[in-house]
């Protein structure tokens, strides 16, 4: 196996056993990057010399017996919205963003864990778009088929991991921006509970909905990244002081008796037959592993979806009002339109959309999680569209497309719940199919464990695109 084709956990083991050095691992990654990035456009910037300097220093530390942890010497690149002091972040836009004065908490924690950051990744402009289009930095391409969308907004995070040019990446998820691209590119992505991972020092989009999480090749790899970044942070008051857990040590789960819900409404209402068949196959596997499958009627999620969209529009408009005033012409049309609509929503509607949130969550927990421990749903109900067919910069068709791509993910952001997107098969034309496992607040450990056991008994996550 080539070094760059390893998973994060395999690369970590290789470093521990001294099969290769951090510098050799980085150079293999950079070599792979040169080969594939011109095709997928997943990277906005690379920092090879700085990364090599870091890798050499980390190899020196290791030779002296100082090992920071399992991520010591692992090359990673992240969505270009995680700020580093004194280094410009593009946020996927041509708009001038002030130079950061602080490093984001999550990058600082990965630095402390010994990660070598070798670049920053493509993303939807200001994380406002579920397709992977970017008219400023160029569209990100799906490694499985470069004519198809990569998904977004964490487009480069998913595409780079799928193309085996990145061992793991941070993304953000406000309406599906981790799960969507992870699902469409055939990798694993974790949308964390609201308040589980610090957003301090990251680009905001919608402060009551934004979450940070990992995209990687497997649930185990996601668990390794989560161990490094999770936890409360005084710099982000939304984070909660909850007892920390070791997601890797606790990932081996028995699924015996686990109550797995299958929604009878909403999530499967418009599902493509090929995707439906793949999900049913995954359910059969999980049943064979000991899960008890329970049909479950979910509370209405139409209003939940709409309320999430309304809140994002309002909060994004407030965040962007200053930039729009001075640099509105630099926004791409689609993104500016999406920001602008927030200006015409009434304050009463915004506050009521926030007030309904606790009502909806209480209802959801009582109705769903009193019966099941976790439920399973597709990430996307439709076949992955082509880039050209979705190159919609404005108009009602754009609204329909965005609604279709986020319909199954945005309600979970509104409810604040964690969800793990994992590969579940392929369509007849070779595009990945993904399912999401959704659990109670702060149940990431269970979701990662369930995903890990499923991946030990399936091989969808091991398939790699012929790029």
């Amino acid at each position, binding site marked *: 196996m080539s070094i760059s084709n390893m998973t994060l956990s395999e690369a970590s083991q290789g470093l521990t056993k001294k099969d290769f050095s951090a510098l050799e691992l980085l150079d293999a990654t950079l070599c792979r990057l040169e080969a594939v990035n011109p095709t997928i456009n997943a990277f906005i910037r690379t920092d090879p010399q700085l990364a090599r300097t870091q890798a050499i220093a980390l190899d020196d530390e290791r030779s002296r017996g100082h090992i920071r942890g399992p991520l010591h010497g692992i090359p990673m690149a992240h969505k270009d919205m995680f700020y580093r002091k004194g280094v410009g972040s593009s946020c996927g836009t041509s708009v001038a963003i002030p130079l950061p004065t602080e490093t984001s908490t999550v990058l600082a924690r990965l630095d402390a864990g010994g990660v070598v950051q070798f670049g920053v990744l493509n993303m939807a402009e200001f994380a406002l778009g579920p397709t992977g289009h970017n008219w400023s930095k160029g569209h990100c391409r799906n490694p499985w088929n470069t004519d198809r969308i990569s998904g977004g907004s964490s487009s480069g995070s998913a595409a780079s991991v799928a193309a085996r040019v990145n061992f793991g990446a941070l993304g953000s998820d406000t309406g599906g921006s981790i799960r969507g691209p992870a699902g469409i590119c055939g990798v694993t992505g974790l949308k964390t509970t609201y308040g589980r991972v610090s957003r301090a020092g990251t680009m905001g989009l919608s402060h009551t909905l934004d979450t940070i999480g990992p995209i990687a090749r497997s649930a185990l790899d996601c668990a390794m990244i989560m161990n490094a970044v999770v936890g409360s942070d005084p710099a982000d008051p939304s984070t909660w002081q909850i007892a920390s857990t070791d997601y890797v040590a606790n990932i081996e789960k028995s699924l015996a008796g686990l109550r797995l819900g299958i929604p009878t409404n909403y999530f499967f209402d418009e599902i493509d037959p090929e995707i439906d068949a793949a999900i049913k196959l995954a359910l059969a596997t999980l049943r064979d592993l000991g899960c008890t499958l329970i049909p479950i009627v979910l509370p209405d999620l139409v209003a939940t979806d709409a309320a999430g969209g309304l809140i994002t529009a309002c909060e994004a408009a407030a965040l962007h009002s200053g930039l729009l005033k001075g640099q509105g012409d630099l926004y791409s049309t689609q993104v500016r339109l999406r920001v602008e609509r927030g*200006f*015409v929503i009434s304050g009463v*509607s915004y506050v009521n959309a926030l007030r309904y949130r*606790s009502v909806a969550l209480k209802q959801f927990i009582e109705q769903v999680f009193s019966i099941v421990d976790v439920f399973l749903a597709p990430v996307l109900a439709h076949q992955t569209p082509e880039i050209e067919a979705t190159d919609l910069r404005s108009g009602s068709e754009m609204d329909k497309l965005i609604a279709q791509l986020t319909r199954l993910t945005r309600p979970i952001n509104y409810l604040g719940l964690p969800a793990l997107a994992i590969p579940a098969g392929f369509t007849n034309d070779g595009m990945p199919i993904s399912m999401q496992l959704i659990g109670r*607040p702060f149940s990431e450990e269970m979701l990662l464990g369930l995903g890990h056991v499923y991946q030990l008994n399936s091989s969808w996550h091991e398939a790699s695109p012929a790029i």
Partner: protein
Amino acid sequence: MNDVTNEQVLAAFATVGQIPLAPAASIAAVLSWQLAVTSLAFSQISFSVEPYSFIVQLRQGI
């Protein structure tokens, strides 16, 4: 609540010094959201519910 006029839209954009790119499209989308949220959700909110109770509910839901 959903009866937003063109004048109100233009006034909203004026507060941030912008000329809207497509007010008609924006209005339609916004009205769609407001209508969905109003008709399906707001009727379930009691007088005492305040926005921050979501965080409490989230932490109680573990």
